[in-house]
């Protein structure tokens, strides 16, 4: 009951921090898609870049999130605003799953389909638009879904550098040793992750072409 009362008393703050959280994750996901999908396409067509690119994305993924926020703090323009920095860090985190899935989606297009399309006289950009991207779309979306769910979790840590979001409650609760406060951040964050997973999962299912 205590928890419910706390939630009701702080509902407007929970709502605004949730919106801030969605903003951080949303902007970084859009940036990540804009960067990672073209990179995935690139390594699918020029396998020479594959090792180094996936290597870099892997290394970024391995850095603990708190450390990544810390590393970026002294970077000139980035360090000025916490929100900016958080968005860059979240974007970097989201790259790997999206690059990898875009790559896998494109290279797994049936060679017979590809050859038939070439035989019809498609240029490589037409091949990409008409054949490769539509057939890879469900895998690309699966990558975006994984990245989004990860980002919603990682974004709570952004509060540590003052970027806001639901992590505010979590860090405050930790300092106050008050579980209600921690839960005021953790529950909405978990719900967001669940919703994103279900929503994107549903779209993914619609895009899937039985092969």
């Amino acid at each position, binding site marked *: 009951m205590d928890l419910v009362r706390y939630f009701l008393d702080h509902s407007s703050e929970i709502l605004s921090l949730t919106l801030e959280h969605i903003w951080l994750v949303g902007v970084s996901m859009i940036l990540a898609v804009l960067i990672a999908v073209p990179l995935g396409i690139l390594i699918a067509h020029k396998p020479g870049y594959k090792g180094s690119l996936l290597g870099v994305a892997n290394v970024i993924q391995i850095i603990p999130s708190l450390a990544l926020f810390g590393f970026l703090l002294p970077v000139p323009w980035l360090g000025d605003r916490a929100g900016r920095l958080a968005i860059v860090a979240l974007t970097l985190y989201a790259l790997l799953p999206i690059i990898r899935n875009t790559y896998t989606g494109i290279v797994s297009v049936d060679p017979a389909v590809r050859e038939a399309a070439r035989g019809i*006289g498609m240029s490589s950009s037409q091949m990409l638009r008409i054949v490769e991207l539509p057939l890879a779309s469900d895998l690309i979306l699966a990558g975006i879904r994984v990245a989004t769910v990860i980002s919603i979790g990682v974004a709570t840590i952004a509060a540590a550098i003052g970027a806001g979001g639901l992590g505010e409650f979590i860090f405050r609760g930790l300092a106050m040793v008050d579980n209600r406060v921690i839960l005021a951040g953790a529950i909405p964050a978990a719900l967001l992750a669940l919703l994103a997973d279900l929503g994107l999962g549903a779209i993914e299912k619609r895009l899937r072409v039985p092969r």
Partner: protein
Amino acid sequence: MTDLQFAVCSQARMSYSTADTVIEFDHVHYRTPNGHPILSDLNLRVRRGEVLILLGRSGSGKTTALKLINGLLLASQGQVSVEGRAISDWNLIHLRRRIGYAIQEVGLLPHLTVERNIALAPRLEGWPTERIRARVEELMTLVGLPGEDFRRRHPRELSGGQRQRVGLARALAADPAILLMDEPFGALDPLTRTEIQREFKALRQHLQKTVVFVTHDVREALLLGTRIALLESGRLAGAYSPEEFLHSDEAEATAYVNVLRASDVPL
């Protein structure tokens, strides 16, 4: 050069290029990137309006020869020409749009409906929507898949035979003068195959296209071909009319004819 000489020369050149040779293999060799030879010194001319069958065992190089025509593969040595122009002088995308291509695996785009699959080449060529619609309707009737129902289906909702028909319709869509077919009926059951072969033969007589057709099935070769080029481990063993083929002394040809005779089971 006098005007008269020039006129004679250009006339000669013209009669050469518009002459009946549509596709020409001139001392063509093909090796895989790791140096394995697939075709050796292939010399062959395909004349306008004929159905040239490339007959041979698996690995004889017949599919390779076919892909050299639309530039999906490029000759290692020698020259392949289409309409009097070397493949290297063609813009490959323009070349492929003038050539219909049907393959055994069909290669229909699984995410597009039958209608959109057939419409691919006309769409790439920028035909107006109305013309594409009419063309798709015409082709679906032609290949025996009439009706609103089929147009909206996806390839996975078709039987193997229906998919082959769609593949054929797609190859014909932009009305190419040349048709390349790589065992297009290979994956079909014998009854459907015989049916679709007969239909194709009837269709061909009324479409007047130059066809290069790859098969390992000697019956199919004799049924559909106006000429049969026999390939044996990357070399041309000979080119025959169906009649000549039946009476040829060449070892590989007689082997095929014997298979044919042996399989005529007396009941």
